[in-house]
């Protein structure tokens, strides 16, 4: 954590030979160097990663263009920064270990679908500073080569150990996502097969009729070239009908296929649904259904070869038939289309829409839950595990953990994308098996998301029409290989040289790969192309993307030059954040919250990593030794403090050259492990801050509120009284004319409200009507609008009427009216001369104090002798005496401090007796006491 020299010192051999170790001197590994090198930040180890935070990448090995990134989650170009997704896609797609083989296996007449299990690999690219958990999966596409489309989902992080240690969970989640996708894909594939079979049958009937006509025409042309061609064509069609029928049989037998994958648990309902669907289809096409079923219409349509027109003409032509048959069969051309003429289906089209959305949701959720660096994840997990045991007092001051439970349950229950248990939608309206033109219209209506390459190519209506165009045998084409090569070249040239990175790191990463999966393919050639030329790169990118655009039939979106765009955005973001700083408040909070948390995380990290027996960590892989021995990376870039000097922000106009400069910088700094500029240049956006890593929104809000609370404590000398009121259960009314100020105060003070409820039900931030006793009972902290009107006077009336139950903080005149507080318990959190300067520090300090309070309250509540008599001999006054003795002498609490404890104890009791207050029909109790209030002025 602190640096390798410290670690060496710790493990040096003469440790035991020390004569008299001074017990009071901190062990060296805990000491912080007093004068760290000026340019080094001990917490931020250099990461070479060009992306600012972890993301999920979905890539495809396209048979047309080779490996290509499809989308990232979060879908934000800023995340990836200068990171070359194309190159990385190539890397991750090149380690596909799915035991896949396609095509015609020897001995079988028909092409076989291969039911491949997903493969899971951890892959590192030390040059790029990127490590990834890579999950390969295969989807079926009738038009694709070998009917398969290889995809992969990757969790990309700059921290290798994060991936290694979270491997199990990552694997679990990505398996789940993969199951979603595959389930949807099977469904879509079956639908497509059905459509194709119809087309084929129709074609068959047409051809048969033609042949019959020819036969009638006379025997002389029986053996003409034309006739032979026709006969061949007919035979071909028949063959392909058999083939497709076999495919349908295969896909429907999917579920009978034994799964080796332990994670592959599927929803039983989905399975049965899918099975019945497929069987229905099979039934339908079991026999070579009526060859002349479409003959009556074939004559009229024979000459129409242009597929694109058929649909339109059909619509006018025969509405009745169309209504009956929601899909119009089309003639299949015998000649197979060129590989690049067709547009490959997007991921969304490959999988059922519902399933696709569910997968995206799941992946987004995964991304969210893995935010933060390893020690953060670990401490959070520890925290949660601990707090699960503290249900009794947990509700007092901690944010709600409710959704954590769901998380755990979600992992354990069988995966079901459409959520059969809860969601009736799919049950009520099962997707139609027969696809009509309607989905096309629907899709066309959607606004294509410019950031999303999937939707980019997916919304052209005519592309849908071309679906039937696919050929039966997709032979491997040279074109594909070429593209693959060229794209590899492209990526290679873009991957910058990092000669500064010693080869020492490479074996490690390779080893780590090996630990998870046998890796025949090590890192790509490090010396591939040493000339970083961004312009050239973008040109190439443009080329490749334009190529793609040609095939897709025209789109104005251009996803090729993401890099400069994102950089410019980073710059603008930087400027924006600086503006914010000028504004003061928000940015200040932001930066304030950042640093100490980092430090704390790093502190925790050391212990955690060397402690192999930590119960919460995932079962360790054999590679653990390798992983642990590496120098820890502190991945969270330190922001804001370092942004100023970054070249990025200085020269926004030269955005295109920036990556190079930054990279050179990175290389030059690589040795001493302090690449601040690097992390700064890309890490300045707000989303990447550790606050964002918090995940839980309420926690983030609470931390932010820490700054407000600190300001309140420092600003108001009577803050201690206000805090006492809140903690002892006296409703505090914040009165003010300015809504913003009142809301800010309420947000800050909300930290001190015990048991604020899951979503802060006991806090009313802004109220502009007179309140009643019921409101006082419900809310413990109220922001009240001061108005000069009849409403205002009635409000003042209610204020004075209920003054015995409330404390009134006047935000405008800066007065507080509440009972006197003489205790000392709160003096350390409400000291207006506190030395704490940062909101987050104060928040943690506060959390500690409140946690201790809760523990005391717990002890008090559940100690039998303080409440009940031990024997019949003693009267209630003995119990009272014991209680007082405990509170005053053992805990050293004054009268007012005891009230805090009593109130907390009361809350704990209520929570324990009625875990969910909503269930009991009785109204909640409202306790108070009759004491004189004083008016405090600033």
């Amino acid at each position, binding site marked *: 954590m602190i640096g390798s020299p410290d670690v060496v010192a710790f493990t040096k051999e003469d440790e035991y030979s020390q004569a008299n170790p001074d017990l009071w001197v901190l062990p060296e590994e805990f000491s912080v160097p007093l004068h760290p090198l000026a340019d080094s930040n001990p917490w931020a180890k250099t990461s070479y990663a060009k992306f600012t935070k972890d993301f999920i990448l979905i890539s495809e090995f396209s048979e047309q263009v080779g490996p290509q990134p499809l989308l990232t989650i979060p879908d934000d170009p800023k995340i990836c920064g200068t990171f070359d997704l194309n190159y990385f896609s190539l890397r991750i797609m090149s380690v596909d270990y799915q035991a896949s083989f396609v095509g015609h296996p020897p001995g079988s007449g028909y092409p076989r679908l291969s039911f491949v299990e997903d493969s899971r690999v951890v892959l590192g690219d030390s040059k790029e500073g990127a490590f990834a958990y890579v999950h390969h999966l295969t989807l079926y596409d009738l038009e694709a080569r070998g009917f398969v489309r290889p995809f992969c989902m990757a969790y990309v992080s700059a921290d290798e150990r994060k991936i290694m240690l979270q491997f199990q969970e990552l694997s679990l989640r990505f398996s789940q996502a993969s199951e979603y996708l595959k389930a949807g894909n099977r469904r879509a594939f079956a639908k497509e097969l059905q459509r194709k079979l119809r087309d084929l049958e129709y074609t068959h009937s047409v051809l048969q009729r033609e042949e019959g006509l020819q036969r009638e025409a006379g025997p002389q042309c029986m053996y003409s070239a034309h006739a032979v061609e026709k006969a061949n064509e007919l035979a071909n069609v028949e063959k392909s009908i058999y083939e497709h029928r076999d495919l349908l049989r295969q896909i429907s037998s999917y579920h009978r296929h034994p799964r080796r994958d332990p994670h592959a648990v599927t929803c039983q309902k989905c399975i049965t649904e899918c099975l019945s669907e497929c069987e229905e289809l099979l039934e339908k096409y079991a026999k070579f259904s009526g060859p002349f079923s479409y003959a009556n219409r074939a004559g009229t349509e024979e000459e129409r070869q242009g597929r694109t027109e058929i649909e339109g003409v059909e619509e006018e032509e025969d509405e009745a038939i169309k209504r009956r048959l929601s899909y119009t069969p089309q003639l299949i051309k015998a000649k197979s289309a060129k590989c690049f003429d067709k547009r490959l289906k997007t991921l969304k089209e490959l999988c059922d829409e519902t399933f696709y959305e569910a997968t995206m949701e799941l992946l987004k959720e995964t991304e969210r839950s893995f935010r933060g660096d390893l020690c953060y994840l670990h401490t959070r997990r520890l925290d949660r595990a601990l707090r699960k045991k503290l249900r009794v007092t947990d509700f007092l001051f901690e944010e709600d953990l409710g959704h954590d439970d769901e998380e755990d349950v979600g992992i354990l229950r069988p995966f079901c994308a459409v959520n059969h248990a809860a969601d009736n939608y799919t049950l009520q309206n099962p997707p139609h098996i027969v696809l009509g033109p309607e989905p096309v219209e629907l899709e066309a209506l959607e606004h294509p998301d410019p950031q999303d390459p999937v939707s980019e190519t997916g919304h052209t209506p005519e592309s849908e029409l071309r679906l039937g165009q696919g050929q039966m045998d997709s032979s491997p084409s040279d074109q594909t290989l070429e593209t693959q090569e060229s794209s590899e070249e492209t990526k290679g040239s873009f991957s910058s040289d990092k000669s500064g990175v010693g080869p020492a790191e490479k074996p490690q990463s390779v080893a780590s790969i090996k630990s998870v999966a046998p890796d025949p393919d090590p890192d790509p050639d490090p010396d591939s192309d040493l000339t970083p030329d961004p312009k050239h790169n973008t040109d190439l990118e443009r080329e490749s993307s334009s190529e793609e655009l040609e095939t897709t039939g025209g789109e104005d979106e251009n996803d090729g030059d993401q890099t400069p765009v994102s950089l410019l955005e980073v710059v603008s973001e930087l400027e924006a954040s600086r503006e914010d700083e000028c504004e003061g408040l928000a940015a200040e909070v932001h930066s304030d919250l950042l640093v100490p948390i980092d430090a704390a995380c790093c502190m925790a990290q050391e212990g955690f990593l060397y402690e192999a027996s930590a119960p919460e960590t995932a079962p360790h892989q054999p590679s653990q030794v390798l992983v642990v021995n590496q120098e820890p990376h502190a991945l969270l870039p330190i922001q804001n403090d370092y942004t100023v000097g970054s070249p990025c922000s200085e020269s926004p106009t030269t955005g295109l050259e920036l990556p190079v400069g930054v990279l050179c910088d990175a290389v030059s700094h690589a040795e001493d492990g302090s690449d601040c500029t690097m992390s700064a240049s890309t890490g300045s956006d707000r989303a990447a801050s550790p606050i964002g890593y918090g995940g839980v929104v309420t926690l983030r809000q609470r931390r932010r509120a820490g700054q407000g609370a600190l300001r309140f404590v420092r600003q108001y000398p009577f803050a201690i009284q206000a805090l006492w009121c809140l903690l002892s259960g006296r409703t505090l009314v914040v009165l003010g004319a300015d809504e913003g100020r009142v809301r800010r105060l309420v947000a800050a003070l909300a930290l001190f409200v015990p048991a604020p409820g899951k979503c802060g039900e006991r806090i009313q931030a802004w109220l502009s009507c007179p309140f009643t*006793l019921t409101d006082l009972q419900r809310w413990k902290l109220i922001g009240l609008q001061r108005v000069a009107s009849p409403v205002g006077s009635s409000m003042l009336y209610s204020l*004075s009427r209920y003054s015995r139950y409330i404390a009134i903080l006047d935000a405008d005149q800066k007065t507080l*009216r509440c009972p006197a507080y003489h205790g000392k318990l709160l003096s350390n959190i409400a000291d207006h001369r506190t030395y704490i300067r940062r909101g987050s520090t104060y928040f943690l300090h506060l959390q500690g104090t409140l946690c201790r309070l809760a523990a005391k309250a717990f002890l008090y509540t559940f100690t039998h002798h303080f409440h009940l008599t031990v024997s019949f001999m003693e009267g209630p006054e003995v119990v009272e005496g014991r209680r007082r003795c405990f509170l005053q002498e053992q805990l050293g609490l004054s009268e007012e401090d005891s009230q805090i404890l009593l109130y907390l104890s009361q809350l704990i009791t*209520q929570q324990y007796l009625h875990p969910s207050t909503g269930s009991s029909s009785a*109204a909640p*109790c*409202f*306790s*108070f006491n009759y004491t004189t*209030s004083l008016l405090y002025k600033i």
Partner: protein
Amino acid sequence: MLRWILGGREAQSSVEKNSVLCIGEDQPKNCFTELQVLKGHFDIVRFLVQIDDFRCASAGDDGLVLVWNIETGERLQELRGHSQQITAIATFTCNNGHTSYTSLITASSDRSLSLWNPDTGNRVQTISDLQSSVKCLLVLERLCLWLSGGEELCVWNKDFQLQCQRQNHSDTGITALIELPKNCVAAAMDKEIVIYRLMVAADSSVSVAEIRCLSDHQDQIRALINVNDGLFVSGSHVGELILWDATEWNVLAYEHILWEEPQSCAQAEIRLAAPKPSEMSIQHLSTNGRLILAAVGSGLYVYSVLTKTVVAYRKLAHDSNVLHTMLLSDSELMSCSEDGSVRMWEIQDLPLPAEPASSGFFGMWTFGRSNKQTGPPPKKVMEIPNIRMLELTGDLIGHSGAVQMFVSFKENGLVTCSTDHLLILWKNGERQSHLRSLALFKKLEESGGL
């Protein structure tokens, strides 16, 4: 308190003019440190009646009768059936052999009477289409009969069968009914009290005969209660308090409560205006057999039955009319008022004149004089040395409307009902806390640990 919120510009006149005691927020003798707001009514809640040790029923203008568990604050039953406001409610305890069983009788403006089972919420009996709406109910448990008073007086048995009926000549009808010894009943009708005698024949048929009409009151009788077996008392709109002999029906004592201005004002000519009748109207009477507590206007008046003298009084006990009072003991009493508060009082001995007393008290130090007009000559109150004072010991503020009534469940708490549609259950916080701890350890034991 209000002043600093208003920024000090508001006139303080209202505060200073108001001579009602303000006890402030420090109330060490007030043990009601916990409350529960009971919601359920949609209109003014006027009546509260105690069913047993832990249940009470509330009724109001919305025609609803709600049964509450006052230990937990739960609403146990909702008795629906009346379409208009409830005008009277009474409990009817039937003691058949070994089990006693309490049911509720309600009367409503929709001219119906209902008998309810508060355990199940069922309407057991109902009578509708009465000639007039019933204004008061009286249960004679000894005879297993009950009476309803309105424009006519009806006698019913426990099975809701009309036993006999008697028309009235008065147009105001019977406003109050009390039971007297020897099967007699006193009914307050306007300015008169009419004594009826119930005669149960051998075939258990009941007849009612008017025996006597007492017309000593000058104005409408507002309150009529039994003091003890031998006495009853009535109060009128103009402040007449008459103590009657329950068997002979003659006047034992007559007090005319006139809130007089303090004698210190020498300029007697100034108080030319007689006090408004409403200021002297006896709204409510309560007794514990030894003392009579009268709610007179916005004041309180304590009268000793034994000495037939005033014990203590306070002209301005509340900001507005006192609606309900109760004597908790010989020295403690409680009152509620239209001003939305419930106040607790203590009858204390006067401090010696030499002692410095609080200005708040002396500011309204008054010696009223019971002014007699007719009847037995009153003793000179002024000279009685043992007059004591009513000291405010606590107040309960919670309702935003007039507090109509309250029922005390002793240490279990106090229930108040109000025009703001709410009931509030006031409890002793310490006791509740203790009870909760008991429950906690019980649950802890049951579940075998946390």
